[in-house]
């Protein structure tokens, strides 16, 4: 891995409310075009950048079956103010926007472009309705996963019974239990605390799909004891020993960000966030081998990101790890060096992963509470890291804004992407 020959900055980012285009008031009734446009506009406004200043754009999506379209670069150009710019569509599933940011950064560092807009857009809850280009209708969960799994090994994996939940949750959780000698109750209690943290953060984040804390949900369903609720039929095992509330909440949404060279950053009157470095590694099934808690792709991505950015784990003040599987998010936090190995659940129970703890993580709520709109999510994660660095994260602002943040995402299936961000020039 080389290093950037010129510095690259994130000037602005934006995302929509994550929810359901058919139900969620903030986005209800929008077309997929308008969803992307809303995120792009917010990013451009945050970057204080006129669309005419953008030299190129990259747009991405994972599941075209819910859009019924390809060639997003031309189909969206008039909606996001990019007509006649250089543009391209990329796909890295749930890493799309951050992987696109690294491509934009390479172009900027090479001196080819000065400012680049990155956009990710996804609908996981609905698809076009009949002949009506403005109408949408719900899709089943089975169809959503079948289409999502087009990103997974189609020669051997899917045709032979691959299922995301045991592979990405249950098997890893069993390996974590064995590695660290945890009983099922110890594991269950720890995962409950981890979920409680995510849900707290979601409740403090206006754009999150789940606004209700875990305690509020338990109370609404008639429970006074949180663990009793956690182990009740309301929270069944989806892939033993992993329960429903340790999993992703699928959503519709869009995100965007504006990257710039140093000239653009100097002209910006806010706090630019430097993209110090990144690591990317891809791997096909099986994602892990003798140690089922560790993906070799993640080991490589973290190592390369730290080398490129020239940082050490102890310098990190905020971390997001891809957590559509809470156990995977936890093992990657430990792999990153941000949390000590085997201590993640204890840290969660002690409140240390909260925004006001000493190891704040995923303060927007992560994939379970903020929601997950596949290709749009990485941009929302980066936006949250930028907000924390800039001290504008609202009610869940880390008391002392971090100087260095790391954002890790998994793109199905599987591209591990790690970005290292630092506030200022």
């Amino acid at each position, binding site marked *: 891995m080389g290093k950037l020959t010129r510095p690259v900055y994130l000037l602005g980012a934006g995302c929509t409310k994550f929810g359901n285009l058919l139900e969620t008031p903030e986005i209800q009734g929008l077309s997929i075009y308008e969803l992307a446009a809303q995120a792009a506009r917010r990013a451009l406004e945050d970057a204080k950048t006129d669309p005419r200043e953008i030299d190129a754009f990259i747009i991405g999506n994972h599941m075209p079956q819910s859009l019924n379209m390809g060639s997003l670069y031309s189909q969206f150009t008039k909606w996001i103010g990019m007509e006649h710019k250089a543009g391209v569509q990329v796909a890295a599933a749930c890493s799309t926007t951050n992987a696109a940011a690294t491509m934009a950064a390479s172009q900027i560092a090479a001196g080819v472009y000065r400012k680049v807009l990155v956009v990710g857009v996804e609908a996981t809850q609905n698809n076009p309705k009949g002949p009506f280009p403005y109408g949408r209708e719900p899709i089943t969960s089975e169809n959503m996963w079948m289409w999502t799994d087009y990103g997974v090994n189609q020669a051997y994996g899917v045709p*032979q019974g691959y299922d995301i939940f045991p592979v990405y949750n249950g098997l890893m959780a069993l390996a974590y239990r064995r590695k660290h000698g945890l009983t099922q109750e110890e594991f269950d209690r720890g995962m409950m605390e981890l979920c409680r943290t995510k849900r707290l953060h979601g409740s403090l984040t206006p754009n999150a799909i789940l606004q209700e804390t875990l305690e509020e949900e338990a109370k609404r369903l008639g429970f006074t004891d949180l663990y009793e609720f956690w182990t009740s039929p309301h929270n*069944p095992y989806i892939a033993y020993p992993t329960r429903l509330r340790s999993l992703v909440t699928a959503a519709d949404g869009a995100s965007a960000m504006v990257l710039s060279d140093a000239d653009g950053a100097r002209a910006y009157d806010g706090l630019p966030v430097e993209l110090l470095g990144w690591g990317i590694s891809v791997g096909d099934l099986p994602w892990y081998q003798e140690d089922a808690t560790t993906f070799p792709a993640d080991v490589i991505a973290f190592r390369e990101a730290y080398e490129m950015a020239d940082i050490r784990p102890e310098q990190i003040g905020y971390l997001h790890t891809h957590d559509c599987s809470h156990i995977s998010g936890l093992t990657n936090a430990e792999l990153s060096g941000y949390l000590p190995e085997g201590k993640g659940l204890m840290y969660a129970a002690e409140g240390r992963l909260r925004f006001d703890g000493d190891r704040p993580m995923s303060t927007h709520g992560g994939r379970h509470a903020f929601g997950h709109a596949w290709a749009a999510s990485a941009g929302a994660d980066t936006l949250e890291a930028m907000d924390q660095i800039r001290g504008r994260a609202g009610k869940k602002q880390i008391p002392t804004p971090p100087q260095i943040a790391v954002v890790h995402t998994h793109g199905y299936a599987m591209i591990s992407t790690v970005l290292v961000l630092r506030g200022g020039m």
Partner: protein
Amino acid sequence: MTTSVIKRYYDGLAEGTIQATKCPTCDTVTFPPTTACEKCGSFEVEWVELSGKGTLEYVSHGAAPPPNPAFNDLAPYSYGHVRLDEGVYVQGIVTNVEPTPTALEELFQRGPVPVEADIIDVGGLPVLAFKVV
């Protein structure tokens, strides 16, 4: 006409054999088979047959409807992480472990257990599954 690597693999399964590719340069076995060595990237690979015997490291289950509708009649099923005796890892359906928390916890407590291939038919396609022996 040439035969796809994928078809040769499934044809082999239908006949009860488990085929992989092996790199003569670095001796890495790529399983399931592909056109290149998964370690060094060499396209010069040879066919080898695997035993189908191995160790079930972990077994979980899928309680939600399977994402591949071909498996609707089989679901819910147990799904495991297997180390084959040849040293390669594969994940697949485990046919003789009940997909219940009690049975899965019981097997977890026993620790890794030996398994062997149990090739099943799903909608006309032979599927590499495993059974605890």
